Structure formats: C-alpha cells, structure tokens
C-alpha cells in the first residue's frame, strides 16, 4: 500500500512525527465532505482529551511512550512517595547456589558445560527418546516440531530462499523453520534440549548425552563445523559447539548485538509504518488496495475451512450442565435421593434415618425379605413404595443402598 500511494506514504511519516489529528484530516481531505466530518470529529476528540492522557514522553524502546512517575502520580495511579531505602529482604546467594542455577549459555559458548558426545551416540539416544515425537532424523511429520530438513539455499543477498515462501498466492510450500533453515544460534539447541527435553522428562539428560543429541541434530541439518562435515564419529564439545555458525545466523532484525544494539532497536521500532506496518486514520471514501501488484481492490474473504474442532464444544445457552454420573455410586443412590431422602434423612418423621446404624440394625432383625415387603406394600408412616410407582426391583435396589449406607 505504501508503495502505491504517495500521499499515504507521507502520512505514514507524519504519523511517526506525532501529529495524529492532522493526519486524519489530511487523509480525509480526499473528499470534501469527509474533511468537514473529520474536522468536527477531531475537535470533539480534542475536547475530551483529558481522559486517558498521561503526559506521555515519546521514544520508548518499543516505539511507544513512557510516562513520568512524579509526586506520587503515575498515569492514573497513585503511589507512596516515601523512601523504600532499607527494604532489603532475602539473603545473599551463595556461590554454589548460583552455580547450580546459572546454567544458561550465550551464543559465543560462554556458560556451556564440560563434556562431549558423538553423532553416533546421539543417533541412538535420539531414536530412543525423541523420534517418537520429532520423527526419524528430526524430519517431523507427526505434528510436533520438525527439527531438520528444509532447503537451505540462499539468494544473492544471503537470504534463505524458502523462507520467502508466502502461502497466499497459489500453492506455495510453507517456509520451514528448522534448526538448519531458521535457528540463529546452536547454543540454544544445547541448553533447550538439556533443560526442556525429552518433553515428559525434562532435565533427565546428562551433559554428555546432550552434546551427543545436539551433534546428531546438527548433523541431520548438514551443519559443518570449521569446514568439517559431521560424520558418525564426530564428537561435539563446548569449544566446537561455540564455533557453529548456523545458516540463518543473519536472518533476523533489528540488530540486538554489540554496543549499538539498544539504539538499533529503538530506531527500528520508531519507524513502525515501514518496519512492522501501521494504519492511517482515513475517515471517508477510504481505499485499501493490496495483493501482489498492490492494486487489487480489497474484497470480502469468508472462512473457507472453518476450524471448528474446539474443546469444550461451542455452547452459549444458560442452562444447567448435564448431570455428571458418579460411576462408583451405588445403583440405588440416585433414585433414593430423588424419592426417599425427604423422609429418611433424619428420624423426624419416624423413619429409620439413613446412616443411623442402630436404627437399621433394628429394622434388619426382621430379615431382608420382610423389609423389602414392608417397603413395597407400606407400613405405618411408610407409604407403599415410598409413594412412587417404581418397579419392585428398583425399590429393592434403593433399600439395598439405604442398608449399605447405614452400616
């Protein structure tokens, strides 16, 4: 879009300079009525400008603003202005504790542990512990991340060609993001596998084993170290891992390394229209062409294949949830609770209370058949079948439950 429309390109820049409302008007000026509308709108907005305006300062690292923290006020919040000096909980970390937890490694290899492992051993370990999810040779296939494969050829600018694949026009392959085609540094592979894999048993691999598996995965990605191919006998260690330069090492921006990193990042996010995309506040008669030529008018695109495999399934009604069946419950329990519990919860109505062992001991002296009979035909305050018309078998089941629950 920016390529296409000069006017909008300029507007994008005005935007960055920080004059939102003039942008809106300028954009709308394409149509006369629009200009009037927008000016009115702009005025209204400026009138209500006290809400949500917190003396912002531009130039934050992420391209946004920062807010002053002064005199007990930070944006909409108050804070305690008294000194926090001397609030000093906790204790000094011991050298051993730091050693135990500080296991990370930097791209230059610092922090990597001693140890070594061969591609051959890595192959064995990988087959046994990783292939089930990540596929033979790391080739993926089961839906878990693919660790190797993908074309690593580069164009004249050193960009991996397949990473430019865009699955939007025609049937292009997806860009593959494997260790060989996408990852920038190899130390990440070592620390990640050691700390987080195998998936269900993280931190179960020794340093030697981790070197071996890392070697195997690098070998599957046809990585060379110092010009040397990684054959089965190749043994990886700290020094060698630090020398690995992965094919896509330069495939990322903004620059985050070296003394200028922070300012490079700031400059990158300051130019958001160019670097990450930005909108324009056009109000009327807005045009929004795009497509491969940048000129195709926008049209409505509907869902082609709806992803409707959702858990729990979509449901929006305000009804009670379906009753959960308690698998282990006595088969007579539910019917007892629905039909008998009112009289049998306590002895207030002269009924033997369920759970009252002594009362049921007396009942049971009559013998089970008699008790069934009394329940089905009624006795004194006990109506026949408890006032229900359930089949005899069911009534007996409920009696069984009452006896069971009163032992």
């Amino acid at each position, binding site marked *: 879009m920016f390529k296409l429309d000069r006017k909008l390109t300029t507007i994008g820049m005005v935007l960055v300079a920080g004059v939102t409302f003039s942008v809106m008007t300028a954009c709308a000026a394409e149509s006369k009525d629009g200009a009037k509308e927008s000016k009115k709108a702009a005025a209204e907005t400026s009138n209500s400008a006290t*809400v949500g305006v917190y003396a912002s300062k531009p130039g934050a690292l992420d*391209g946004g603003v920062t807010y002053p923290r002064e005199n007990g006020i930070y944006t909409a919040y108050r804070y305690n202005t008294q000194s926090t000096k001397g609030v000093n909980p906790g204790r000094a970390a011991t050298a051993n504790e730091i050693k135990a937890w500080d296991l990370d490694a930097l791209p230059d290899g610092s922090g990597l542990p001693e140890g070594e492992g061969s591609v051959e051993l890595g192959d064995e370990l990988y087959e046994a512990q990783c292939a089930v999810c990540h596929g033979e040779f790391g080739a993926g296939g089961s839906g878990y991340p693919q660790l190797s494969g993908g074309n690593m050829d580069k164009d004249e600018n050193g960009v991996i060609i397949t990473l430019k694949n865009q699955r939007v026009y025609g049937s292009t392959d997806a860009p593959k993001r494997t260790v060989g085609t996408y990852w920038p540094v190899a130390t*990440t592979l070592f620390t990640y596998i050691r700390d987080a894999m195998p998936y269900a048993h993280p931190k179960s691999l020794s340093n030697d084993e981790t070197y071996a598996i890392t070697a195997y995965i690098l070998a599957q990605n046809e990585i060379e170290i110092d010009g040397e191919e990684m054959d089965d006998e190749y043994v990886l260690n700290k020094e060698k891992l630090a020398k690995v330069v992965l094919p896509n090492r330069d495939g990322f921006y903004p620059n*985050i390394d070296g003394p200028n990193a922070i300012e490079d990042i700031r400059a990158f996010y300051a130019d958001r229209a160019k670097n990450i995309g930005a909108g324009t506040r056009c109000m009327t008669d*807005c045009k929004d062409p*795009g497509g491969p030529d940048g000129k195709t008018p926008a049209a409505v695109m509907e869902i082609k294949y709806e992803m409707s495999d959702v858990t729990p399934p979509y449901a929006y009604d305000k009804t009670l949830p379906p009753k959960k069946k308690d698998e282990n419950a006595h088969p007579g329990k539910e019917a007892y609770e*629905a039909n008998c519990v009112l009289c049998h919860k306590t002895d207030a109505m002269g009924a033997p209370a369920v759970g009252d062992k002594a009362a049921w001991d007396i009942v049971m002296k009559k013998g089970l058949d008699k008790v069934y009979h009394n329940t089905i035909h009624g006795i004194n305050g006990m109506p026949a079948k408890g006032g229900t018309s359930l089949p005899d078998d069911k009534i007996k089941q409920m009696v069984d439950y009452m006896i069971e629950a009163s032992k």
Partner: protein
Amino acid sequence: MNKTLETEELDSTSRREFFKTTASVGTIAATSMLVPNTVLADDENIMHHVKWGTTLGHEVNKFPYGMPPLYEHNVVRRTSPLMSSAGDMHAAISMTPLADLSGIIVPNGLHFTRTHNGVAQVDPNKFRLMIHGLVEKPIVLTLDELKRYPSESRILFMECPSNSAAEWKGPQFGSLQMAKGMMSCAEWTGVRLKTILDELGLKPEAKWMLAEGSDGSEMSRTVPVEKVLDDAMIVWGQNGEALRNEQGYPVRLMLPGWEANLCVKWLKRLEFGDKPWYAKEETSKYTALTASGKAIQHFYANEVNSVITYPCPERDWTDLKKGDVVEIEGLAWTGHGTIKGVDISFDGGKNWVEAQLKGLVLPKAWTRFSYMHKYDGKPMLLQSRSYDDSDNVQPTVNQEKAVVGVEGVYHRNAIMTWKITDMGKVSNVQVRS
C-alpha cells in the same frame, strides 16, 4: 474449579419442569414487544412463584471458595487441538470467552493460558527467586520475603503475540473467542523491579536481563534493562488473590504492554548481563518471519488493536428488529501506551465514524468503546479501528500484509470484520486483497 452438578443439585423432575416453563415463556417474550397489550400472554415467571422463592437457598458457606452460577457453565476457556503441538494439550493455548465478559477485568478462572510444558504446580514453600549477574548484591528470596517489598497494583492487559495467528491467510475461526481470545486483562499486584534493583545495585554494564521460569520447559526470555527500569514488575497478585497456576503461581514477571510470553511464569531466576541470551522462545519461536525471508526478533509490544465484542458470532443480532437502538461494544488495547480513540465502520472500511470510550482509560489496559446504533436490518461489514497516544493507528489487513506478509505468525493486529446478514447473523470475515 469445575462447575459440575456435584456441588449443586436440582432434582431431575423439577429441572425438566423448569425448562418447559422457560421455553414457552421465551417464545412469548420474543414476540411480546410487537403485539398490542390486550393479546399479550401473561408471563409464567411473573404469574407463579418461582422455585427459588419457595424453597430455602443454600447455606451461606456451602462453597467456601465461591463459584459462578451453574447456569453460566458454558462461559469457559476453550482450546483447539489445531493450535497445539500435535494435539498435545501441554504445549497449547486456551482462549478467553470475550463475548461473555463485561468491563475490563477478566475473572481469574477465565484468563487465557499458554503453556510450553504443561501448567506447573509450584510448591510456594519451595519457591526461591534468585537475582544475580551484573548486580552488586546477588540475592535469594523466599515467597514471603519477596512479598515484603512494597507493592503496587496495575490493571494491565496480557496478550499472546499469537493472538489470531491462524488468520494471516484468511479468517479461520467462527467465534470471537477463538479468533481473538488469546488475551485478558486483570489487576496485577507486585513489586516494581526498579525498587528491588535500587537495593541490589545494578552495574552500569548491565544491558539485558534473562528471566527464567521453573517449569519443565525452563521457559526463558531476554529483556532489555531499559524496560526493566521503566515499568517492569514481579507480580504475585491477580485480581486480589494469588496468581492462578495457569498464570504462573506463585510469581511471574510482568512487562506492561509487551507480549505475554515475555512475562515469564513460575519465575525462578533473573540474571543481568551485557549480551542477549538467544533463548528458544526468542529465536525458533516468537520471531516474525516477513516476506523478505528475514524475521523480526525481539518483537516486544503488542500493537494497537481492537475488536467488537457485541455483536459477534457468539452474540449476534438475530433478535433485533428494524428500528431497535442498540449499543455496539468492543475492546481496544495497545502495548505502546494508552488508547486514544476508536473508529467504527459499517461498510468494511470505506467510511468511518468515531465511537466513544467508556470506563477507565488506562495505559496498557483494555479500554471499552461504545457506539449507539439504530438497526436497519441491512447487511453490513462491521469494523473497529483503534489509535493510541503513541501515534499508532490499527492497520487494515492489506496495510499489515504489505509490510509483514502472511507467514509472520506473531503480532497480528489488523482490523477485524464481522459480516452481519440481513437476518442479523454474524460471521468472521476479512476485507483484503
């Protein structure tokens, strides 16, 4: 907590009767406004005593930890195997039911959740936080000790940078929840990292901070110290109570406005250094591959964004009649600062009107917008477009695509479109080339 019938019982017969009644009343209510008074049927719910008015309710503390009404049991997070690794629900994401929420605070049980190695269950007694590296005084804290720092609270949104990642190439999900629900907003309480560092003495060479989680994936990320000193926090409170396990109990890092993955959960260690670490979640993942074949790394803030929450596919306009006046409502948010305003289009982005903001307008928090609309029964393409105090305007699909392409996965903030039919049905579409 599970909303099941184990905790609240209605016997099956009375439940059936209840439905019979409500069903017939529902039909009456739907037509009643059209019919003159004389032929209106009397509403059973008014003419007869209701069940809960003629019986004793539950004892006051039947649920020592309160639960939503059972009738609300469909208001839950939802997930999809399509958004996980091979359908494995330990490396997956569950979405907030945005259509059912009011205001800007998401209840803790509905906060969206993304995990890389399952939801860790940390024993708070064994929790330790280590802060070391380029500081004068490396320390270890227990949870109680950490909480001795003076606390502050902030209402902040959290958004997974993969929010609507499935939709770069076109619309895919038929609901607001699945299309945009990888985000939530809550009040977070904790200590500003600057307060801690003032005591520990940050060395001037310190440019970066490694934040590491204690879960099975040892999730870690590199954060620039500039952000740490500006507004970063370590939080232990979520809407007034302890963080949920899903949100990193007992403690997570909070970087206001920045992608939620950077706000490391189950926090264990902060190390200060002079170089970035290149963790897995800032190299292999959470980098946005653009059409140039190169990828944006250290992608921090969630960009200016908005979505209309009513109407939406879940709560459509099929019950409206021509001439009804209805409030269009939505959420706007920006990780770059504070929402300044929101525009609404009824014709797929050709013409726009200004909506109004309502409620609290806070930095890096959800902001509600509202527009009163007279429904005319015509089909429309409804859109919202937000802008913020950092001069960001939400882009169209084409505008974003022109810079990023369609394989970026992360940080998608293009304008969304609800297509509304003449019957008031709402579906998720995109206006694009």
